[in-house]
């Protein structure tokens, strides 16, 4: 078996699309499906899945791109920390290009600040060991998928007695933004495509409560096009019989309980706290921060950051609306004109999981 190509088999994709169309034929209007995760947005655009089910399924792009949801205030904090003397600032690649109020990490790097894009957070530990005379700051981003990796680094740093590694935690969780979106009267979602890799960690049981609360079906889906089509078919079937259960299409990697070891590690070092989401604003308990006993490695507390700085955002950018599921990229006046992946105006154009970047790459018509 070929775990990649078999799930990209075009005959299978087309057959499932046909089946979806046949079964959706009796619906009075297209079904609105929000894909929570930016990885699915990318797949849907890359394989043009929206076109295969045009007229019966409307994909609404969700808030699940960790780079996109980072508010300008956090980018500004990153820039402030990265500009300090004696600091090596480390983060995962895409963050470098996200514009802050006045500058970006990439521009600061151009000015000579030591800012490094890591392939893996493990490298932060290595850099700290190699540079004992520098303060190494790891700017951690990501949903439940990436949080355990930060927890492993924290554990290793504490165990090994590494004294010069600090963490700026910007981890976020999936359920909170979904609640905010469902509370918005302008959004009309009939069902959700559940994230692939977040679910690997949290497990399929974690969505049962949400499905009940929203009275909407959730299909946890793999990233490959066959996965997405099979999940859409399930959502249509559930929609037709008005059921709202959690369907685990990605059972080859997602168990009911998730990765318990990873969840325990996260709970050991972090606690829920308020996070300000781009487009959604501040939401209680939607992010994670270090527990009080780890204040000595918390970059936000160790390095006095200027509080209450006014943030500045590009006015015409509608990235926030896109993240709330109320707009699509071509509706932005800057899309593919002033704003391109090479010179992004907003965060949604930066990461390949961002809706604007995915539209730019795979579907520029309508611009």
């Amino acid at each position, binding site marked *: *078996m070929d*775990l*990649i190509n*078999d799930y990209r088999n075009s*005959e*299978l994709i087309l*057959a*499932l699309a046909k*089946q979806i169309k*046949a*079964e959706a034929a009796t619906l009075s209007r297209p079904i609105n499906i929000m894909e929570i*995760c930016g*990885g699915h947005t*990318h797949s849907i655009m890359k394989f043009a899945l929206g076109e295969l089910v045009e007229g019966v399924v409307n994909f609404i792009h969700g808030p699940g791109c*960790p*780079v996109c949801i980072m508010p300008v205030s956090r980018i500004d904090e990153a820039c402030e920390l990265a500009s300090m003397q004696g600091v090596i600032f480390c983060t*995962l*690649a*895409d963050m470098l290009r996200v514009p802050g109020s006045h500058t970006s990490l990439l521009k600061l790097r151009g000015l000579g600040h030591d800012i490094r894009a890591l*392939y*893996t*957070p*493990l490298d932060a530990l290595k850099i700290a060991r190699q540079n004992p005379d520098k303060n190494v700051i790891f700017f951690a981003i*990501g949903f439940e*998928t*990436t949080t*355990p*990796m930060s927890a*492993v680094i924290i554990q290793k740093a504490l165990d090994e007695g590494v004294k010069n590694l600090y963490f700026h935690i910007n981890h976020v969780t999936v359920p909170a933004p979904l609640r905010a979106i469902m509370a918005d009267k302008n959004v009309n979602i009939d069902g959700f495509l559940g*994230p692939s*890799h*977040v679910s*690997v*960690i949290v497990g*399929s049981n974690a969505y049962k409560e949400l499905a009940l609360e929203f009275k909407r079906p959730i299909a946890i889906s793999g*990233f490959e096009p*066959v996965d997405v089509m*099979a999940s859409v078919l*399930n959502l249509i*079937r*559930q929609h037709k019989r008005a059921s709202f*259960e959690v*369907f*685990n*299409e990605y*059972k*080859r*990697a*997602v*168990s*009911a*309980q998730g*990765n*318990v*070891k*990873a969840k325990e*590690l996260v709970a050991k070092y972090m606690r829920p706290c308020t996070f300000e989401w781009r487009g959604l604003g501040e939401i209680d308990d939607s992010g994670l921060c270090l527990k009080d006993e780890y204040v000595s490695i918390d970059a936000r507390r160790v390095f006095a950051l200027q509080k209450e700085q006014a943030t500045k955002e590009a006015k015409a950018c509608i990235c926030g609306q896109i993240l709330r599921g109320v707009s699509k990229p071509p509706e932005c006046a800057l899309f593919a004109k002033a704003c391109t992946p090479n010179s992004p105006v907003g965060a949604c154009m930066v*990461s*390949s*999981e961002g809706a604007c970047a995915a539209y730019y790459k795979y579907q520029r018509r309508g611009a």
Partner: protein
Amino acid sequence: MCLSIPSKVIEIDENNYATVETLGVKRQVTLDLIAEPVSVGDYVLIHVGFAMEKIDTKIALESLELYRQIAEDMESGVIDEREGDMGLASLSDRLSTQKGE
């Protein structure tokens, strides 16, 4: 950053690092986040230098088989009879015996 694809474990060292192969590219990942034993030949999901979970290839095959069945039935025109077969009852039941639910 989430677009990880299945990678095959080809070597495991004494520090719990594995050499994995993804589409012909070899790289090193840590197995620190996986509680159950991982062996050479297993498929794992990789994310930023970590293996997150093993992939159950038996379930992967079964899902594909089911989708192929739907496609075949589609071609032979048995749409309505099979409706619901990929609904919760059937697929979940068929697959839940494989991975702890």
